[in-house]
């Protein structure tokens, strides 16, 4: 009896959580399949309407902005490139930094670690003027490199990799050394495969971070060709409600693809190690 009660309670809590996540999304999705005038008169809808293809086709391919140079699909592409670049670069850089901090013990490695860690206190928003200056001096305004590079050193990812590497037993390195692995081989043959799960987690984390950027791309792009998702929501699809719903749903797709794809690896890794 008490078991059934317990299951009922825990499941209702879980179901509430699921609903909390799903309901707003469904509402936006269902509303995005109606015509604009219908939504304008009737408010947001629970049921799916008949305008799905029209709406999605229009939003994806209509040129927007002042110069009509960019479409929503172009915006998603830009953001995907930016987020992907930030995620892969920052995972790579953080792994290398953590590797050197943990395995190449110099007298100052702890100091270096704390210096890196302290940069958490100076987010991009705080150093946006010098960052802009540097990127502009390097002639990287209005380019993918300019969007990606200033955001691709992550103290938090370095911290996580460092903690993970420190948990790897020292004997593993020693055994590998006796087996003739040099530092590079140890990194590629051991640390990379062993930290697969950590890589997946950090990649997701940094991808979402990159995808959600607003201020940096807003400041450093003057050409509409380089607009990103959050800017697009503000600039192109600010007015018409149905277009906005459609845009929101579409903008979810790139991160969802990444998460679905990496989640497998993530879970697989979790089970493998036990």
């Amino acid at each position, binding site marked *: 009896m008490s078991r059934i009660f317990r299951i009922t309670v825990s499941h209702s809590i879980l179901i509430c959580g699921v609903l909390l996540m799903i309901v707003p999304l469904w509402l936006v999705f269902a509303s995005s399949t109606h015509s604009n005038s219908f939504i304008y008169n009737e408010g947001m809808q629970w049921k799916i309407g008949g305008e799905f293809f029209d709406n999605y086709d229009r939003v994806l391919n209509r040129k927007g902005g002042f110069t009509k140079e960019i479409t929503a699909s172009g915006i998603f592409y830009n953001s995907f490139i930016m987020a992907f670049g930030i995620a892969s670069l920052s995972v790579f850089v953080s792994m290398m930094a953590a590797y050197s901090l943990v395995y190449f013990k110099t007298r100052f490695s702890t100091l270096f670690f704390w210096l890196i860690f302290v940069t958490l206190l100076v987010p991009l928003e705080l150093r946006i003027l010098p960052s802009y200056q540097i990127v502009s001096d390097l002639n990287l305004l209005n380019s993918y490199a300019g969007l990606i590079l200033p955001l691709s050193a992550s103290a938090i990812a370095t911290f996580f990799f460092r903690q993970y590497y420190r948990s790897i037993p020292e004997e593993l390195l*020693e055994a590998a050394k*006796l087996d*003739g*692995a040099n530092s590079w081989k140890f990194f590629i043959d051991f640390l990379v495969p062993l930290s697969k799960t950590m890589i997946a987690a950090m990649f997701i984390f940094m991808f979402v971070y990159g995808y959600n950027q607003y201020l940096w791309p807003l400041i450093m792009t003057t050409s509409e060709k380089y607009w990103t998702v959050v800017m697009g929501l503000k600039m192109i699809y600010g007015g018409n409600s149905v277009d906005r719903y459609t845009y929101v749903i579409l903008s979810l797709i790139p991160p969802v693809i990444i998460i679905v794809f990496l989640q497998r690896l993530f879970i697989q890794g979790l089970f493998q190690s036990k």
Partner: protein
Amino acid sequence: MSYLELDNVTKIYPNGTKAVNETSLSISEGELMVFVGPSGCGKSTLLRMIAGLEDITGGEIKLDNRVINKVDPSERDVAMVFQNYALYPHMNVYKNLAYGLKNKGESKEEIEKKVNEVAELLEIKEFLLRKPGQLSGGQRQRVAMGRAIVRNPKAFLFDEPLSNLDAKLRGQVRIEIKKLQKQMGVTSVFVTHDQVEAMTLGDRLAVINEGVIEQVGSPIEVYEKPATYFVAEFIGTPQMNFINGKIHANKFISDEFECSINKDVKDQEVIFGIRPENLKVSANGSIKIKVDLIEKLGADSIIYGYDKSNNYLCYRENGNTKIKANEEISLEIEDENYHLFDQETKKRLN
């Protein structure tokens, strides 16, 4: 012929701790040398210096007539079995064995042949495609051995490889290691703090204390003629009995008893040591103890008791003893089997 030679090897850590102090030792080809000592005595450090995992502060290590002080661990041609095996968790057994060979640049066919040979030898063929996480402790131990063997090194180094196994398995693996080592005839160094392992495995033992080798010799030599007080105390269970006293006119005199000495020793303060099995009950024995505790181990009984000057002594008797706690018994020394140590230098005198 000396094959692995340590010449005044010293290790001083950056913080000034002296882990190994001017240690010299030569190990001949095919010999199994055991480093035994309490934890923190420097035995593992010494082994790791041979492996190249610790820098050598002073002295020289030679393997097969080549000084290897500055040689990279992978080029030293030694293989090591670690305490926790240090198997590569993300590689299956085959890849674990093949990794070292692959790094040496051997061909695929060659690697496959060697790995299969070793897998056959160690009976791990059926596990080749499993990962270390799916193996039992004993199987992991075999894989760790296999990884050492497959490289066909000049020396095996074992760093307490049996301490993670349960008692029964430990006994089995010990015998297997001994057999394999003899069969392959590879010079080996085995580090342990377990004296049973040391006694049963070693061709010779090096008893190490505080970074210094106290004695090198065959297990029986070390047991029967411990060179120092430390060795006498460390080797043997139950421990040797010690009684403080002095030598006067070739007689050992303590508060408890006297006994004439069969060898000329000058008059001085000494420690008199006697193993439990060299005592026997005798009606007119000179050592009288009041029994405190009796351990019946089946084949032996170990009897502990206090003598008049409150030394805690123990003696070993066969089988199911009739002696009871709180009984007074007299013991005498069998066949003049005793050990004398200088109280100052702790060195053996007889």
